[in-house]
């Protein structure tokens, strides 16, 4: 069990960032998030990953839905699409279909992904679209000022559940595993180094990679997914965990009380781009 970690403020990291050259990937716009929001660590992790991997800035597209989290594309200096609520994945699929050479990263919140956008995830995973999906899980609707999300804990009081949320949350990792996602991992905004490492790995994976990022909403959730609680609850996946073993991954994912961080599952199989080429070949055509 790790020790609670303090919120990460961008300015604290500024020197370090400048020295590393990661500033290249930051846009002119400063994030408009609340001070202390977990998302700062994610944008930081992302630019770090881009830097480490040397991703050409004009060959990458960040695609988001709508939410605090989905403001993300404005804060990195890559191509970006701020789509509609819940639609990052199908737009990303279209982009990747049009141009396989692009690095495509979809980002969004828990409401964006598991409420309104819930129908698209299984299909992106099934097709093994070669994109990375970073899901920012603060267990609440931040942008609309604090309603329950499908990942809110039982008992959470929100503006739409003033008498406490009576429903148990969905289990996103089990869902993604059942969808056949070819890379499934979990990170926590309060563990920035691990987070960066996971983002890098997720982008590096060839196929559909899903990284679930626990991240406190310091403004609208003071009781559930806080830095203190998450710091106390999260754990590492056991050393012995085999990312090739789907049932072991499912087993680990079952534990929502003590979310384990790390790579749950990885598999290599043809991507959507590969299957397009396969179909073209079978038809007797050749790629243009």
């Amino acid at each position, binding site marked *: 069990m790790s020790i609670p970690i303090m919120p990460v403020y961008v300015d604290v990291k500024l020197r370090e960032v400048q020295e590393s050259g990661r500033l290249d990937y930051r846009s002119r*716009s400063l994030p408009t998030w609340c001070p202390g929001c977990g998302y700062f660590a994610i944008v930081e992790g992302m630019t770090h990953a881009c830097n480490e991997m040397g991703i050409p800035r004009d060959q990458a597209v960040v695609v988001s839905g709508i939410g605090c989290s989905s403001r993300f594309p404005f804060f990195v200096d890559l*191509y970006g699409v*701020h789509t509609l609520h819940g639609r990052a994945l199908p*737009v990303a699929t279209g*982009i990747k*279909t*049009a141009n396989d050479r692009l690095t495509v990263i979809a980002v969004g919140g828990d409401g964006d992904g598991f409420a309104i956008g819930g129908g698209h995830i299984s299909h992106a995973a099934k097709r093994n679209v070669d994109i990375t999906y970073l899901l920012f899980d603060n267990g609440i609707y931040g942008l609309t000022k604090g309603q329950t999300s499908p990942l809110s804990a039982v008992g959470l009081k929100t503006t739409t559940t003033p008498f406490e949320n009576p429903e148990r949350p969905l289990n996103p990792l089990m869902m993604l595993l059942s969808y056949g996602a070819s890379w499934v991992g979990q990170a926590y905004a309060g563990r920035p180094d691990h987070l960066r490492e996971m983002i890098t790995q997720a982008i590096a994976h060839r196929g559909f990679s899903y990284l679930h990022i626990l991240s406190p909403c310091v403004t609208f959730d003071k009781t559930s997914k806080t830095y203190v609680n998450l710091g106390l609850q999260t754990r590492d996946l056991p050393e012995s965990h085999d990312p090739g073993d789907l049932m072991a991954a499912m087993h680990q994912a079952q534990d929502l009380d003590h979310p384990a961080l790390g790579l749950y599952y990885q598999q290599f199989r043809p991507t959507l781009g590969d299957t397009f080429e396969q179909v073209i070949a079978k038809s007797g055509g050749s790629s243009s």
Partner: protein
Amino acid sequence: MNATDIQIAICGSAGDGTIAAGDILRNAVAAAGYRVICFDVYPPEIRGFGKCISRLRITTEQSYSLKRQSDVLVSLDDSHTIPHAGEVRDNGAVIFESQPISPCAEGEHMSGHVLPGQIPYGFPIRELAQKATGGARSRNLVVLGFIAGLLGLAPASFQKIIEKKFAKQGPKVVARNQAGFQAGFDAGKGSFKLDDAAFGPFEKPASAGKVIMLSGNAAVVQGCIDAELATFFGYPITPATTIMERLATELPKRGHRLLQTEDEISAMAATVGAGFAGARAATATSGPGLALMAEMLGLATITETPCVIFVSQRGGPSTGMPTKTEQSDLNAALYGSPGDAQRIVIAPTNVEGCYRCAGKAFEMAERYQTPVIVLLDLYLSNRYETVTLAASGPPFVLDANKPLRRLEPGEVYKRYALTADGVSPRAVPGDAGCMHVITGLEHNELGRPNDSAEMHTAMSRKRHDKLQAALEHPDFAVTKRFGNTGRVKVGILAWGSTFGECLEAMFMAQAEGIVCSAMKVVMLSPFPTKAISAFMDDCDAVLVPEVNYEGQFAQLVQGVLARPVVRLSRVPSSPMPVELILGEIRRLSGVTASAIAS
């Protein structure tokens, strides 16, 4: 006129090969050089023995719609055909089975329903099929042969088509069907000809170019291919499905990509994604799917992303009538997305137009950076016509993007630069140094969120004004006037598939001495205000026939021009009857029905 103009209707139940017979017939006469227009009616049931009718009009010059009355009616199932006896003209032919398997009550046999003045041709269809092929399955081919023999069509083009159509099923099946055809042909040729329908001498049309026969949806596909569509995303829905199905075969062969998505929201989303990435991208759907695309279409409008949406209308509202035609999705196409979300909407009026509009839609989407909806309907999607493809190759511009100039050092790329024509040079991912974010939020020239009064006003203006240029889009007629020029008693203003019927009605009215014209309106948004206004200036009365209940196009015309039109809005679950339009023309021109009758 010595020209050919024969309409044949084949009627039977779903299991009789009715539609297949129509298919062979239309291909054969087209191959022989005639022009055809055909429309099949299917039963709405999943399976079963519902009524099918295949109607073909065969002419020397391309016609615009089916005729009200057929010259030849063929019955493959008397119970279905009897109610249609009335659609055969005087001295027209009715072809039917003379030896039904079981003796049937008089009222149930076709022979008892041929009207006075019509010529009955009963012959032993089943028996001939049995003899020639050893089974009754080829009855439809026997009948085809009979028609060919009777009307004097050379069998060669039929034989070729039969060969091609059944090749996959092996030589036995081909042989069986050829034998059936031949048996029918011999019988037909040997029949004593009483009716006056016959094929005129065939003259090779003067126009250069390749003549092919296509359904509306096949023409759309051809347009897409000739415009080099690179990515297609779709979800099946009647009557648009066949667009995707054909593309599923054609695109891969050309190295292009098609994805069947999980729903219409994703189909539209992926289309926008691919459009953003710089590829020509399209989807196709019908009313229910269009509803689901409404939100994403708004995103395409505000982000100024090129994309093309084919919408083939069927009966509405809601699931409505999936196998019946209607023109009731115009409002949704024009206004379905919340906010001031204008887009280009074009509607072809015939199959050739489907081809042109499909190809041109990609040009327009790119040039004006906007979603373009191509509005079809079941009648247009499913009907077949002969189409002439220009010998000079596809008439489409393959890159209609505004050129992007290289950035000065230190210059920041402005995706939404306010320019004179409202169109901003567009960079796509991969373009060096032009990183930007597109968003559904109102934004400034850089694309950054900005909701000031000034910016919102400027951007709203830009998004609307830039589309006006589409009214002058090169090599594209947004409206076209037919019939009398100058002042007319009645002007018909029509859109979409109904225009064919309007034109037929206009010709008939002119033949009766009524001075009238018809204007087809192909571009519905932006609205061709000037052209339509000028047309209305010439008309004593303006008639707007359309197949919907609310008079959606009439409402649009009045909404823009604040000038009254006469609505002829009907929902007959089928194309607008020509005589209904003709009746209105007469009424408006002051000619009474009795005056005509006398």
